[in-house]
């Protein structure tokens, strides 16, 4: 596939081995990012030229091994097997050489030439670890070059070694032998697999055999395409049984032990360690940050700070944007004659997309802070501190942070769940996030609590947050034992050394998240805003001037004794008629009719058609419910003190009651999240789980609200 003029290099290595700094140093700003097909793992590639030859460098996900354990590992190995880069640069962290070499041997096994970049050698020597890279390279059978990625040292020598190795591209790397028992089984399986020439040309045969012996799920899946798939499967299972009988342990563990034995042998020859035991800064920081007693309070403090900064500082630019979009809408009102086009632009597009875009400052600030924690290495510590509590409910230590962000907004929260590498953990976390009461639900809670529970408003709002957390944890508990059942996810997680995050690194994360959000705002959310606008606008009500004249006269007669000036009276009448028209427009529209249609469905929850409409418009954004109620209760939104009058209007509606208000809050808390959140969920975990989410939240909302309302009615509470 590649011409002699371009060289395709796969850059691989353990997480935290300094791979990204080497990638940046080699490629500079010549980078582009995409996604691996069907998964949300970034696919980064960059270019560089060396001695007149163009190199494309693919930054593979950082992994500890090449098992089928996580998406990252499967992606890294599938990339190498299917895309066949010309050569692999394996970055080896010198401070942690054994574990890094365990991965290096696995790359060699695939059969593509490997060059080792022995990185972070300065830190290793400070710790008293001295590596003779010549001897190590000879023992492993690959060229190894010392590098210091953050200082850009050794990169020229690395590229020289790569080109030197390419001159002998046809000679394969040496690979390790696993001892008599394992090699016998490998040879036997090789014989069977080679009977299918097509399969043997697609996959490296020896590598496939070893993966089968490791009982690798993904390899067993791939073997199904073999001509004699059943036979290979049977033979492999027999081999595994023989190995486990002989060693008395899991076959996968046996293979890894053999690799480590080989690594230990090489390291004994090539590495000298002095007794110089420098206590690293990381260890000192950890004695405070993950201290048995202080760890949890400190974590909660950090979390509180993130929240405060995001939602207080973020409020300021968010208001600027809101003002800007309001001005744009006013501009449209002024420029265009009243009509469908004006309404579509001002109310539909600017109102809808603008509402979504005003969240951008929040997302930027939140992800600056989170990326700082992530890149510094604290995130792994946060998982360490919280794992015990979340594990009880079937969640993972790393679920904590995304769930807390969910109190702010589900969109960044769902994106933040990417740190969870196990797909089941990630799906579970994403599914329960919308139950965490988000910032947009707060105005709804506040309005209803203030109107119907004036003495306990704070407590009622607080109860919504607690109910949300309770439901999130208990649904996680249930799903973990039903639809997302599986082997407990291991918590074998590295606590990497603390590192100072770079501006470039943080900028990259923030841009990545923000651009995805913006892309969504421009596409799916634009469409959704137009749809919502259309169903609340069409069909238009019949013009009924006689009725409005009558209403105006009635209203005027009530004002006659008020002693107001005539102009003030006229203005009040104008307002009154306008809100009346708005209300008529809503009830004539598709949304209004839908409200009437779904009334039988929401009736058992105590809701009438007006609340039905409010609930429907809530899918655009939860805070829209407040605006909808404003329109339906004929309260002019633009008037000053709108909430006071709306509260009064709600209270004086005889079909409303504190019980219904509580049930409505509960319903809004649980029911399917807004379009923005739903489209993010779709992007992160796919259509199937999106539908699961919608069905789950809607049925839980209805079921629970039904129980609460009916019980409340029978007991006569809050009627």
């Amino acid at each position: 596939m590649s011409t002699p003029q371009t060289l395709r290099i796969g850059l691989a290595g353990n997480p935290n081995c300094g791979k990204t700094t080497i990638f940046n140093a080699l490629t500079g700003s010549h980078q582009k990012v995409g996604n691996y097909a069907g998964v949300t793992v970034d696919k980064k590639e960059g270019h560089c030229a060396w001695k007149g030859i163009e190199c494309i460098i693919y930054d593979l996900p950082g992994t500890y091994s090449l098992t089928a354990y996580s998406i990252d590992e499967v992606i890294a190995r599938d990339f190498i097997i299917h895309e066949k880069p010309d050569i692999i640069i394996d970055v080896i962290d010198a401070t942690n050489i054994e574990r890094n070499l365990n991965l290096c041997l696995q790359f060699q096994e695939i059969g593509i030439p490997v060059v080792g970049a022995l990185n972070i050698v300065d830190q290793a020597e400070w710790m008293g670890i001295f590596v003779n890279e010549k001897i190590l390279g000879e023992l492993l059978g690959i060229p190894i070059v010392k590098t210091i990625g953050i200082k850009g040292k050794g990169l020229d020598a690395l590229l020289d070694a790569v080109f030197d190795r390419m001159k002998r591209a046809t000679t394969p790397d040496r690979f390790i032998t696993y001892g008599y028992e394992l090699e016998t089984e490998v040879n036997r399986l090789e014989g069977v697999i080679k009977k299918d020439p097509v399969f043997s040309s697609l996959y490296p045969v020896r590598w496939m055999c070893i993966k089968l012996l490791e009982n690798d799920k993904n390899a067993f899946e791939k073997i199904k395409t073999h001509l004699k798939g059943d036979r290979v499967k049977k033979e492999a299972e027999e081999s595994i049984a023989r190995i486990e009988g002989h060693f008395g342990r899991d076959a996968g563990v046996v293979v890894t032990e053999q690799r480590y034995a080989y690594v230990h042998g090489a390291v004994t020859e090539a590495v000298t360690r002095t007794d110089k035991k420098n206590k690293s800064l990381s260890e000192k920081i950890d004695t405070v940050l993950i201290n048995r007693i202080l760890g949890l309070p400190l974590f909660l403090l950090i979390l509180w700070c993130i929240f405060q900064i995001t939602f207080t500082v973020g409020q300021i630019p968010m208001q600027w944007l809101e003002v800007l979009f309001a001005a744009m809408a006013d501009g449209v009102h002024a420029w265009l004659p009243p009509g469908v086009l004006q309404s579509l632009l001002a109310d539909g597009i600017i109102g809808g997309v603008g509402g979504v875009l005003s969240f951008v400052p929040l997302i930027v600030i939140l992800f600056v802070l989170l990326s700082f924690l992530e890149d510094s290495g604290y995130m792994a510590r946060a998982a360490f501190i919280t794992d015990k509590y979340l594990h009880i409910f079937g969640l993972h230590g790393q679920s904590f942070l995304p769930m807390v962000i969910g109190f702010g907004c589900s969109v960044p929260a769902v994106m933040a769940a990417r740190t969870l590498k196990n797909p089941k953990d990630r799906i579970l976390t994403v599914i329960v996030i919308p139950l965490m009461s988000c910032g947009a639900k707060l105005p709804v809670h506040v309005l209803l609590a203030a109107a119907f529970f004036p003495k306990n408003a704070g407590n009622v709002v607080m109860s919504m947050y607690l109910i949300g957390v309770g439901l999130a944890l208990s649904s996680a508990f249930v799903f973990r034992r039903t639809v997302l059942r599986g082997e407990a996810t291991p918590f074998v997680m590295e606590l990497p050394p603390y590192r100072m995050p770079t501006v470039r690194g943080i900028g990259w994360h923030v841009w990545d998240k923000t651009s995805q959000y913006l892309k969504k705002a421009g596409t799916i959310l634009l469409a959704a805003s137009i749809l919502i606008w259309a169903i609340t606008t069409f069909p238009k009500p019949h013009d009924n001037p006689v009725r409005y004249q009558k209403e105006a006269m009635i209203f005027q007669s009530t004002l006659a004794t008020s002693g107001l000036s005539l102009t003030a009276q006229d203005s009040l009448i104008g307002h009154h008629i306008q809100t009346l028209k708005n209300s008529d427009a809503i009830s004539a529209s598709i949304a209004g009719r839908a409200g009437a249609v779904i009334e039988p469905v929401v009736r058992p929850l105590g809701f009438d058609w007006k609340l039905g409409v409010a609930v429907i418009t809530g899918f655009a954004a939860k805070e829209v419910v407040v605006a909808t109620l404003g329109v339906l209760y004929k309260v002019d939104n633009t008037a000053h003190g709108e909430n006071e009058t709306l509260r009064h209007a709600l209270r004086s509606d005889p079909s409303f009651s504190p019980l219904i208000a509580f049930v409505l809050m509960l319903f809004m808390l649980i029911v399917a999240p807004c379009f923005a959140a739903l489209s993010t969920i779709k992007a992160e975990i796919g259509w199937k789980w999106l539908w699961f989410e919608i069905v789950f939240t809607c049925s839980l909302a209805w079921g629970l609200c039904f129980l609460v309302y009916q019980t409340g009615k029978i007991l006569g509470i809050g009627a």
Partner: protein
Amino acid sequence: MNIADLKNGETFTVCQVMIRGEVGKRLADMGFTRGVAGTVIRSALFGDPLQVNILNYNVSLRKSEARGVEVLSIDTQGTL
């Protein structure tokens, strides 16, 4: 004895990984293999999970996973 039996600060050498399947494989990949020495650094608030130093890096394990790694404790004199 296994890693979960050890006290904070105690040093050990690995005998073998007893857990089967993915978890066992992962433990082995992270370096819990025969003859490797390590130290239990600390545990979180209620004794779970554990922080273990092995092969010059730190890794966290739940007690349920730590129980699957058979080890020998090395006392301060360095004898088994």
